[in-house]
């Protein structure tokens, strides 16, 4: 089922507040073979928030995660993420195209701290593989 084209421009509710802890940052760093001894989280850590926002969006639109392939990701940082941050992500559907039976979905997620300050804006291109191929 193709994605509803009227979604373009729609923002989804913010994700529930996520507390950045040293433990979570360390687990993320170590999973990608790195180490963590305090300070800023790895640069791609905000994907944890963006991914949760994307999941909520896919669930709301009844899209199966396993049909999604990641096309592109960009981060624009206002400041690094550090333990103690309490973050939420708000996803907006920016663009939608259909190519060869696939939906190409462009999203932007703004990641903000508990004071409402923008920490990072991240854009993703998601390829939704059609079922009838």
């Amino acid at each position, binding site marked *: 089922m193709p994605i509803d084209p009227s979604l373009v421009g729609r923002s989804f509710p913010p994700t529930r507040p996520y507390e950045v802890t040293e433990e979570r940052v360390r687990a993320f760093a170590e999973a990608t073979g790195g180490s963590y001894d305090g300070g800023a989280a790895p*640069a791609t850590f905000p994907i*944890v928030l963006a991914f949760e926002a994307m999941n909520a969006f896919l669930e709301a639109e009844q899209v199966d*995660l*396993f049909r*999604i392939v*990641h*096309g592109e*990701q960009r*981060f624009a940082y206002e400041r690094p993420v550090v333990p103690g941050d309490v973050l939420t992500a708000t996803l907006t559907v920016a663009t939608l195209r259909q190519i060869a039976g696939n939906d190409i979905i462009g999203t932007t997620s703004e990641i903000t701290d508990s004071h409402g300050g923008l920490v990072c804006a991240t854009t993703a291109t998601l390829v939704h593989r059609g079922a009838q191929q």
Partner: protein
Amino acid sequence: MSTARTLETRVFTITRADLVRYAGASGDHNPIHQDEEVARSVGLPGVIAHGMYTMALAARAVAEWYPDAELVSLGCKFTSPVVVPAEGGVDVEIAGEEKPGEDGLTTVVLSVTSGGQKVLGMPKAVISG
């Protein structure tokens, strides 16, 4: 002033166990990164690494090259899947070239390959400090 500088290439290995660990740490439990059958059912050649896993390796290389710098932006396209075999692992090679820019910013143009093939499209980081 504007001479490019080549950075020391980094090589990282990705295993299936890494992908399971990353799924837990990132919350991305998409089965195409763990289950061969599901991956093939959507037309993939096998279990593939999360694109964000490969991007995290690129970010790790940048952090190792510039431990004191702050990132301004980071981006890439995911152009070829990195197939991770059930046994052993797959190597990902990260090369970088530094291009000084204006306003105290530095652009790091990356080249991320696996088995000689580019896996990320136009990976680039901009750093300050």
